[in-house]
């Protein structure tokens, strides 16, 4: 088994807010991230796939293909967007649904959900890990919940 990682960057804005809490509790838990005017980051997304190198090409997957998958499935929806306002998985919920706060943890999980069907459908490699850096010092990762 060989693990292959492709890195991509995107920029987005967000804020942290739990609509079922008071403003005071949101500010206490989330600090400056609770500012409703939002703020932004340059995110780095690392996508790791695992598989056996193809006997003919020597590739686990074609990196150009993986780049296109990342751009189509994630960056097209998230890059230069306000995550809370215009990205479906984080946008304001319908009545009775709780919202998904665009923390780095949830970004890693939602990126996995966007990427996993495309990687699996291609056959061969499996999605192994999604890691998202919010800053060079902060990252979250998801490995499919295992």
């Amino acid at each position, binding site marked *: 088994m060989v693990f292959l990682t492709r890195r991509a960057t995107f920029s987005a804005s967000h804020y*942290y807010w*739990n609509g*079922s*809490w008071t403003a005071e509790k949101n500010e206490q*838990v*989330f*600090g400056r991230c609770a500012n409703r005017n939002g703020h932004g980051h340059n995110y780095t997304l690392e996508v790791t796939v695992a598989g056996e190198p193809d006997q003919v090409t020597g590739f686990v997957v074609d990196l150009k293909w993986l780049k296109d998958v990342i751009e189509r499935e994630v960056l097209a929806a998230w890059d230069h967007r306000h995550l809370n306002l215009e990205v479906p998985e984080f946008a304001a919920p319908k009545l009775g649904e*709780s919202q*998904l*706060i*665009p*923390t*780095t*943890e*949830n970004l*890693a*999980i939602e990126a996995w959900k966007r990427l996993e069907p495309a990687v699996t459908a291609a056959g061969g490699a499996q999605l192994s890990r999604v890691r998202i850096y919010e800053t*060079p*010092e*902060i*990252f*979250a*990762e*998801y*490995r*499919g*919940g*295992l």
Partner: protein
Amino acid sequence: MSPEVGRAYFGRRYTLSASHRLHTEALSADENRAAYGKCNNPHGHGHNYIVEVLVSGEVDPETGMVMNMVALDAAVQNQVIERFDHTNLNLDILFVNRVPTTENLCRVVFELLKGALRSVELEHVRVEETENNFFECKGN
């Protein structure tokens, strides 16, 4: 409520600066020099260490977090940064009987944090001594 997603991981990188000398009384002067090279120079030397901490757990549906970063920062600050930053590692009681190699620093940091983090699993501590070498300790 968000659907069941299982375990997720949260990582954070910290820096601390400290000096050390790699030397053990168990070896002769020549043997120390052979084992540790310039790291055995008598007056020690220093590094800007990067300490990467990776924790895991369920994502709290109320906060979207594995754990609050402020709490992680406080634990690392209290247990690690305040103890070791701008110090001579050889003088810390934890290094009285072990050489302050970065392997041992990594293990010590792991143990200090493991005792302080209750609500999450400590997955690994990675200590980068320079840009070109690093060490990792993992739970189990």
